[in-house]
């Protein structure tokens, strides 16, 4: 495929704008990834994509704009993300639709196709997952299917990249020639009613962009937009009685009072006809599928949940065990790097800024990249194998008791990676109340950025064998607190009836190494980018606030004291004391001292108080603040695990426990709070969240502190 990096002049070149539509989990996002060099999020469950994304690329002489839309089962506004798709298709400007379908389950997928066919837009059907179909012995006759439907159908596979060029060629040819109208045929009684309406519209020479047949179908389907258009036309007065009569006939024929249901049945029988013609399934002797075998174990009524908990425990064990191996090297590297860079800078202030500010701050965050990578791999596996939906299934009953929806599990799990996509993916919840409740709870799932704080403290206070268990306990503890908080909210603020729970369970898929690699790489790069930009800037700010104002009186006082000191030891002790005193009178020290009384009941010193406050900007900043504060306070770069040692030396166990509890619960970072406010739909929710999390964090932390005090 030809990919041109520098775009030709956009005015002369030809453009095609394609909307990618299909049911959830058929591989729309993956198809775009294999056509262009985009890295859209792919996962093996329904509702991965929740917002529209445009991807641009060039093919032949065309500029393609492909819009990835959230998957939708039917043209309803069941959930927010389906509304996104529906609104886009009806209101936005695009040239044609690529309808992506799963070749291994055409019967279900064609339901949506039928609905698209009455939209009077050009369509190309991408028969995706053809590799899987081959494996399952399903053979689709694409050319015959194109003929029957009147829509070009192309076999593709987003994984093996087969048929991609044919698909794009089909798109171009549909764009260049006027396509025929799709051949959607209904049962006899419905066809009669359609003919009746068409005849009437023809007679009155009703003028419209769409064909009269199309209008007739949409009127019968109770399509609001069609009604709105024709309503103001004089033909309406006479048409209305005809329509009422027609609807009655259709409903009678289907023995149903729901016209949508009747049409669904119409589509289903039409599609069954098509499938009987074009699909050849090798007659397999009802063998139990792989998915069935795995499911027998993984969603076993008794062992299912213990197995899941074991996986989680294993993940955190690995996070700590494997993650801590490269930690020493990274730490040593930054120590060496700081010294080397520092040696080249003559100016004291600048050197301190670079070494103690930027390098210490950013280094403290980068230190935890290995841990985070392992966590990301775990989440990527959960997402891409199909296990996610199973756990949602297993936990639904349990969640239900706490007033949550089983499907809330999906955003909650994303929350372990980062709260921002988690807030977005709460859109898969149909009901606003459930969605808001889930939004409030997502913060209780500790995000990847909090992992560094936990690893730091777990490493400082527990033996390496225990630290993994402690991590597991922190995460599970956060989740349980979240569930209890959900129950409280459900009983007070979000009272109301339970929402239905119906969810598709995808088949298990073995994720390719490449897919996992890309998912993890994208997330890790984001983390590193944040470390290099936002965290670095925050570190500079913190360094500045902790180094100024200069206090000459203090400096001179200690300078003379140190000069008069008798021994080396005394000198060292004095210079440490000076650093402390200096830090305390800095801007940051002033802020810390000011807020210290608030946090005193939790056993926090002023440095911890400051770290909590800077953590509001981003959770990683907690670690970099501690890094800067403790590297300024005393001389630390002689040891390798310096920050860990400094923490265990300066902070009592009880205070550490209380600190962890606050970190687990209090307000998510600035960026996440902004997304939360947007998704919740108003600034007032932000204040609710602030109050809600602060109160719980403070109360629980206070309790934890006092219990820990008694125990130690």
């Amino acid at each position, binding site marked *: 495929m030809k990919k041109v990096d520098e775009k030709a002049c956009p005015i002369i070149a030809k453009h095609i704008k394609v909307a990618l539509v299909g049911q959830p989990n058929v591989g729309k996002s993956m198809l775009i990834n294999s056509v262009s060099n985009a890295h859209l999020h792919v996962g093996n469950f329904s509702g991965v994509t929740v917002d529209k994304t445009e991807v641009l690329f060039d093919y032949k002489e065309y500029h393609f704009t492909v819009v990835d839309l959230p998957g939708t089962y039917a043209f309803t506004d069941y959930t927010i993300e389906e509304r996104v798709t529906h609104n886009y298709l009806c209101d936005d400007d695009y040239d044609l639709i690529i309808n992506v379908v799963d070749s291994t389950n055409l019967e279900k997928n064609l339901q949506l196709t039928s609905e698209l066919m009455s939209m009077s837009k050009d369509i190309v059907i991408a028969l995706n997952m053809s590799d899987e179909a081959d494996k399952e012995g399903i053979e689709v006759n694409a050319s015959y299917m194109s003929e029957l439907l009147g829509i070009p159908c192309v076999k593709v596979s987003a994984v093996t990249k087969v048929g991609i060029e044919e698909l794009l060629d089909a798109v171009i040819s549909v764009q260049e020639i006027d396509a025929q109208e799709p051949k959607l045929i209904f049962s006899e009684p419905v066809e009669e009613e359609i003919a009746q309406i068409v005849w009437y519209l023809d007679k009155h020479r009703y003028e419209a962009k769409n064909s009269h047949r199309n209008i007739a179908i949409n009127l019968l389907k109770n399509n609001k937009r069609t009604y709105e258009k024709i309503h103001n036309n004089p033909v309406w007065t006479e048409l209305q009685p005809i329509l009422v009569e027609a609807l009655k006939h259709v409903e009678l024929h289907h023995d149903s009072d729901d016209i949508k249901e009747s049409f669904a049945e119409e589509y289903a029988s039409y599609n069954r006809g098509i499938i009987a013609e074009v699909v050849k399934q090798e007659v397999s002797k009802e063998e139990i599928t792989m998915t069935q075998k795995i499911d027998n174990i993984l969603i076993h009524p008794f062992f299912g949940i213990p197995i899941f908990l074991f996986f989680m425990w294993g993940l955190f064990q690995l996070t700590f065990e494997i993650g801590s191996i490269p930690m020493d090297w990274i730490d040593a590297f930054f120590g060496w790097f700081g010294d080397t860079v520092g040696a080249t800078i003559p100016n004291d202030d600048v050197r301190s800024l670079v070494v103690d500010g930027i390098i210490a701050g950013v280094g403290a965050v980068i230190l935890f990249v290995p841990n985070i990578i392992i966590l990301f791999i775990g989440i990527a596996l959960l997402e891409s194998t199909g296990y996610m939906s199973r756990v949602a299934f297993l936990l639904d*009953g349990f969640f239900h008791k706490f007033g949550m929806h089983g499907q809330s599990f999906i955003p909650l799990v994303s929350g372990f990676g980062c709260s921002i996509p988690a807030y977005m993916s709460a859109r898969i919840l149909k009901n606003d109340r459930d969605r808001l409740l889930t939004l409030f709870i997502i913060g209780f799932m500790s995000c990847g950025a909090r992992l560094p704080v936990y690893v730091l403290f777990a490493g400082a206070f527990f033996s390496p064998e225990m630290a993994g268990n402690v991590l597991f306990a922190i995460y599970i503890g956060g989740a349980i607190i979240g569930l209890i908080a959900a129950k409280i909210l459900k009983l007070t603020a979000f009272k109301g009836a339970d929402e*239905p729970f119906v969810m598709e369970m995808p088949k298990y898929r073995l994720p390719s190494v490449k897919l996992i690699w890309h998912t993890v790489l994208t997330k890790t790069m984001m983390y590193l980018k944040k470390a290099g930009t936002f965290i670095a800037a925050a570190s500079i700010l913190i360094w500045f606030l902790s180094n100024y104002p200069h206090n000459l009186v203090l400096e001179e006082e200690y300078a003379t004291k140190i000069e008069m000191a008798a021994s080396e030891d005394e000198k060292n002790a004095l210079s440490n004391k000076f650093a402390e005193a200096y830090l305390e009178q800095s801007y940051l020290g002033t802020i810390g001292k000011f807020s210290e009384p608030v946090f005193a009941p939790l056993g926090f010193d002023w440095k911890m108080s400051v770290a909590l406050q800077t953590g509001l900007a981003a959770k990683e900043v907690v670690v970099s603040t501690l890094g800067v504060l403790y590297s300024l306070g005393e001389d630390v770069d002689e040891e390798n695990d310096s920050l860990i040692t400094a923490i265990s030396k300066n902070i009592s166990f009880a205070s550490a426990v209380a600190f962890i509890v606050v970190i687990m619960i209090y307000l998510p970072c600035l960026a996440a709070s902004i997304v939360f406010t947007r998704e919740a739909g108003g600034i007032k929710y932000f204040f609710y969240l602030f109050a809600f999390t602060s109160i719980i964090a403070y109360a629980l932390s206070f309790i934890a502190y006092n219990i820990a005090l008694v125990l130690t």
Partner: protein
Amino acid sequence: MKTLIDCQNCQLKDCQKNCKLKVIKLHAPTDLKQRLISFGIMKGSIIEILEHSPAKSTMEIKVGKMRIALRAKEAALIEVEKI
């Protein structure tokens, strides 16, 4: 009226696991009905009960080639007959 949920309960006794059921009518409210239909659960479709979660609050069924999880409460809205 016999619904999917009755069948789950009798699963241990007379229906053996993986028994097949035919949908007679959906008694769900419009929204939910739409969703069930788009999952392929409509009049005349064949359902197979596969598994239930702990405490039987949720069940996994198979319609066509698709596996679907649904709660007991929703299952009670699907009228079925044994075939």
